[in-house]
Structure formats: structure tokens, C-alpha cells
């Protein structure tokens, strides 16, 4: 099948896979920074597991990329400079407090859920299969973060104030998740992915939850029952390669060992 593709289409799929992997790598790394610092010991263990899951998902995407383009997954993960990354800036934001971490993961996992549903419909079989496998593991993540979100939203608590502050920063940054890239347009145009409006689907999942808890929400309920983006966007451009010093700092740590000897065998 892939033999019939034009170089442009092949490159577009590679870029698309790259972006999927980059976001999981960045998020997995930020998650790993909580090791030993979570406010509750069982949560610390659960968080370590979740961060490993995210890295594992990145590895899955990197394997697809390696199969397609013949690039080594490790070199792809650790050998690139920030300007070559295609992750939305949301994922590289430095960790704030626990409420910030829960809120970011909740928002992103809800996004991943709708995106994986979309990817499962892909005409590119390896991607559809990978998405199906990842979606099953992500189910626990959604349960985990929704549970914590609810508890942190406890009225008249310090946690709730911190959660509201965190959402203030994170909600506009979610706009960066919905920027359609040239690669996506090529893939949809070629019929490898259906045209979808992920933002509307994401709002439909996230807004009822946040509204129900009385928290700031990214959408406004319309007369026809749908949700519309409330407005305000920040931290955009990540999918198109516009990264910030956050990602630079992340990679300086994540790639530190690899950079000392990229040719080393582990």
C-alpha cells in the first residue's frame, strides 16, 4: 500500500506520526518529573505508571515512523533539537503544582480520547491498529484524572483555588491542540483520515464535566446544545514547529545522557 504513495504523502504521514510521538514524549517526560514529589504515595506510584504508559505510546508511534521511513526510534526521540519537534506547546509547559498537573493531563487525555477515535478510522492500517491499542490503555488515564479532578474541585478548599488558577493558564493553551497542520490536510485529502472537528468533540466531553464542577470551562453552551470555544488562545504553533524555551529545557534534561554519546549501545 505504501508503495503507491507520493513522496509528499509519505512525508506527510511521517510528520503526522512525528507529532503524535512528540506530544507523548513531552508529556511522559513532564509526568516523570513528579516521581517522588506527588502529594500522596500511592498517587506517586500511579503517576510513574502513567508516565511510563505515555512513553510507551510514544514508542509505538516511533516504531511506525521507523518502519515507514527507516529512522531509528531512539535517534528520533533523543537526537532532535527543539525546532524539529511538532508537539503542541501545552505538553512542554513546566509542571506547576499538583492541581496544574491533574488539570493538564485531564484536558489532554480527553483530547487524546477523541483523537484516538479519529485515528482508528485511518486508512493507514498500522496507525489504526496502534490507535486501538493505545485507546484501551488511555481509558484508565481518563478515569484516573477525572477522579482526581472531581476531588480537587472540593468546595471551600485550597485545592479548588489552585485548580481554578491552573485552568486559567491551561485552557487557552489547549487551543494549540486544534491547529490543523498541512500534513493533516494532505492526509485527509488523500482519504487516509476522515475530516473531523476534534475541537467540537473535545468541548462536548470537557465542558459538561468542568461546568458540572463549577470550574472555568473552555466552551459556552449554545442554544442547540453544542459547545462553542469560549475564546482566548495562547501557546499556539507547536504543531508547526514553533517551540519555546520550555521544550528546550525539557530536552536538555531528557536528552542529557544520550547527547553525551549518541553512538553508545544501551
Amino acid at each position, binding site marked *: 500500500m505504501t508503495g503507491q504513495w507520493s513522496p509528499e504523502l509519505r512525508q506527510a504521514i511521517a510528520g503526522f506520526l512525528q507529532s503524535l510521538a512528540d506530544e507523548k514524549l513531552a508529556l511522559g517526560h513532564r509526568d516523570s518529573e513528579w516521581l517522588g514529589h506527588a502529594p*500522596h*504515595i*500511592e*498517587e506517586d*506510584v*500511579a503517576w510513574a*505508571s*502513567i508516565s511510563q504508559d505515555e512513553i510507551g505510546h510514544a514508542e509505538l508511534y516511533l516504531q511506525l515512523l521507523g518502519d515507514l521511513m527507516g529512522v531509528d526510534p531512539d535517534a528520533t526521540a533523543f537526537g532532535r533539537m527543539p525546532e524539529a519537534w511538532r508537539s503542541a506547546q501545552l505538553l512542554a509547559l513546566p509542571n506547576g503544582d499538583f492541581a496544574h498537573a491533574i488539570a493538564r493531563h485531564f484536558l489532554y487525555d480527553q483530547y487524546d480520547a477523541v483523537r484516538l477515535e479519529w485515528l482508528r478510522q485511518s486508512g493507514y492500517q498500522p496507525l489504526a491498529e496502534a490507535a486501538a491499542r493505545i485507546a484501551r490503555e488511555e481509558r*484508565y488515564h481518563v*478515569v*484516573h484524572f*477525572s*477522579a*482526581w*479532578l*472531581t*476531588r480537587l*474541585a*472540593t*468546595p*471551600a*478548599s485550597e485545592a479548588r483555588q489552585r485548580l481554578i488558577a491552573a485552568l486559567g493558564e491551561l485552557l487557552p493553551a489547549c487551543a494549540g491542540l486544534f491547529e490543523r497542520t498541512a500534513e493533516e490536510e494532505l492526509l485527509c485529502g488523500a482519504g487516509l483520515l476522515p475530516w473531523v472537528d476534534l475541537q467540537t468533540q473535545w468541548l462536548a466531553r470537557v465542558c459538561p*464535566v468542568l461546568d*458540572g*464542577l*463549577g470550574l472555568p470551562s473552555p466552551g459556552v453552551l449554545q442554544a442547540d446544545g453544542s459547545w462553542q470555544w469560549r475564546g482566548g488562545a495562547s501557546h499556539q504553533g507547536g504543531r508547526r514547529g514553533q517551540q519555546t524555551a520550555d521544550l528546550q529545557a525539557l530536552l536538555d534534561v531528557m536528552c542529557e545522557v544520550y547527547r553525551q554519546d549518541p553512538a553508545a549501545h544501551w
Partner: protein
Amino acid sequence: MTLPPEGKAPFFVYEIFIQRDHASQHEHVYSLLAPDDEMALVLARENFLRREETCINIWAVRRDHIAATPYDDPDLFARTTDRSYRNPSGYRQNMVKWRKYKVLAHGGPEEGE
């Protein structure tokens, strides 16, 4: 999703039991601290099943909801008189006698008896 009650949430000790498959019973694996039943199950999922391949069910029970006997009353478990008649030990002697006196299908007692 409903908001939890106002105020600082107490955490309770939960005992965790997992069932590996439909042919097995729930086994006690460990305990953890959680504010409520749902969080106990959510945390148990990642704390005790990180390396397990199969599990189909988790129970979480609050330690203070478990009824237990006291440790400082050993007389509750006292066995001071002989109760060997309650052991199913007589059946082994029976089996020896059956073998000795049973006529086998091809006739005659077993060799050596």
C-alpha cells in the same frame, strides 16, 4: 460528576483484594490510603497491577469497615481438649482394609496381601 462535600477530606486505609480470573477467588494483596471507594479502586489499579498480566476484578474495603477479633483475647481460639475425632484421618485406614479384602475384577485378592 458531583462535587465532593465541603472541607478537608479524611483519608482512610483500604484493604485491596484482586481476582485474577473467573476461576479464582479474590486475594488480599495490600492496603493503601484513599479518600473514598472510587479513588481506592483507581489507585489500586496502578499500585498493585503494574506488573500483573491478568486481573479481572478489584475489591476495596475500608479497614474500619472490617469486623475483626481482638488480638488480646487468646482464649477465643483456645483448644485445650482433644479433638482429633474431628480430623478426617480414619479414611486412610479404611482404604488399606478395602484393598486387602476387595475382590478385583479379574478375581482373587491383590498380590502380596
